[in-house]
């Protein structure tokens, strides 16, 4: 079976500013792929090209077997985009947002789809409230829930946890893990190293418009000089302190 995403030689400039200078990577079906990079590295540009919002200057991008430039409509049937800022309709309730997307995706029973997703993302109680009243984490969860309608094969999450507090971030991470567990291919961009470490099967580092490293976490670690053994007294991280004080469990760290 071919990869869910095949990107080769992707280039994009805005005037004299070269944002992407030749990006290559592939993403296996059903895996979580993290595109890691600092602000301005070109992460959002890659996502916009893959989701048919932007035309590349050169190179090819194939999503679920369809070329983004030649067959954008077919690509849109396969994907779902969750942009950098939660694109929910604030003046509609959570339920209405879900039903709106279900109708636009021509689903048979929008009401039932909304029920199921509200339940799955722990939004049932808030379902009747306007999205404007939601917290950052709830809004992101609603955003991701909206992306799942119609069972897209590939989901793009552009900086899904930027601006969220630690608790909300954990909620979003759980949602992303569940997605991949159900066989959806996930490409997420992030500037948080820890997020890539926590979630991704493979991590690519995008720097100044090109991929400078690409591999599993273990592979990336071998790029560093061999480990030397030191005795270090382990201090709790601020995050552990935060969760200890607010009385909730810290996220399960899944170190290999």
């Amino acid at each position, binding site marked *: 079976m071919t990869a869910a995403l095949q990107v080769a030689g992707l280039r994009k400039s805005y005037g004299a500013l070269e944002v992407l200078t030749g990006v290559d990577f592939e993403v296996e079906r059903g895996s979580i792929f993290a595109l890691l990079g600092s602000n301005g590295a070109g992460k959002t540009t890659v996502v916009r090209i893959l*989701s*048919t*919002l*932007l*035309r590349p200057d050169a190179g090819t991008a194939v999503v679920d077997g369809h070329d983004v430039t030649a067959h954008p*409509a077919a690509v*849109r*049937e396969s*994907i*779902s*985009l969750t*942009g*950098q*800022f*939660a*694109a*929910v*309709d*604030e*003046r*509609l309730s959570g339920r*209405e947002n879900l039903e*709106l*997307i279900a*109708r*636009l*995706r*021509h689903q048979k029973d929008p009401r039932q789809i909304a029920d199921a997703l509200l339940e799955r993302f722990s939004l049932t109680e808030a379902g009747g409230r306007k999205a404007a009243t939601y917290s950052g984490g709830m809004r992101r969860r609603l955003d991701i829930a*909206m992306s799942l309608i119609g069972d897209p094969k590939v989901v793009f999450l552009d900086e899904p946890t930027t601006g969220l507090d630690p608790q909300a971030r954990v909620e979003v991470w759980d949602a992303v893990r569940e997605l991949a567990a159900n066989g959806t291919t996930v490409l997420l961009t992030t500037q948080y190293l820890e997020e890539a470490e926590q979630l991704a099967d493979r991590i690519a580092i995008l720097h100044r418009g090109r991929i400078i490293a690409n591999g599993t976490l273990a592979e990336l670690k071998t790029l560093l000089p061999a480990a030397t053994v030191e005795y270090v007294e382990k201090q709790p991280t601020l995050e552990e302190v935060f969760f200890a004080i607010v009385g909730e469990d810290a996220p399960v760290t899944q170190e290999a």
Partner: protein
Amino acid sequence: MTTHALGDTAVLTRRSLTHILRSPDTIITTAIMPIAFLLLFVFVFGGAIDTGAGVGEGNYATYLLPGILLITVASGVAYTSYRLFLDLQGGIVERFQSMPIARSSVLWAHVLTSLVANLVSLVLVVGIALAIGFRSGAGVGAWLAVTGILVLFTLALTWLAVLAGLTAKSVDGASAFSYPLIFLPFLSSAFVPTESMPGPVRWFAENQPVTSIVNSIRALLEQRPVGAELWIALAWCTGILVVAAALAITVYRRRMR
């Protein structure tokens, strides 16, 4: 995919009409300014204006109404560009664009919503005018013709509003385009006969779109023959509609790829 164009437009129109129902103040604020002009001119200035029947004679509310209706639409479409601009800013349009829907349905939904919202405001303004003395013996045919002209005028200004919403850099910029449109009826036959104006002003007033539209609606409401001015009015509306829509669609396509 285009087979869904109508259904998608209907779903998105329902969405933005829900927004309006949840903040009816947008329709009320749209109608407040034209209603204020109506009251001001009928009860303050009207008594000193000679519309041809002699100073203070004739039904000034009836004379004034066509111009007030055009001002209502001009101030109403400011919200059309405002709503479109907010959708573009919020990223929800990008979400729609990355989905398998007919892309043009996003714009059409805003156009239809604008039409419905403006028609509601127009009914509101006509209601107030009736309460303060506007009278017309016009039959169903004439009223249908008036409605038709107003729908065409609203569509023309709506596409201008869409163009403004698509190209605006800020929320204020998105609605500022409507100020000259609101002002245009003052330099027309809407408030006083153009014969009373000095040369260059009169020339401008008689050759700008508002005068022919106002005169046509006024003739229909006063049960007089409309004559050639109706065709000039329709030509203006259609011309603005076609040019603005073509520009807006081009800008929209370019912006999205």
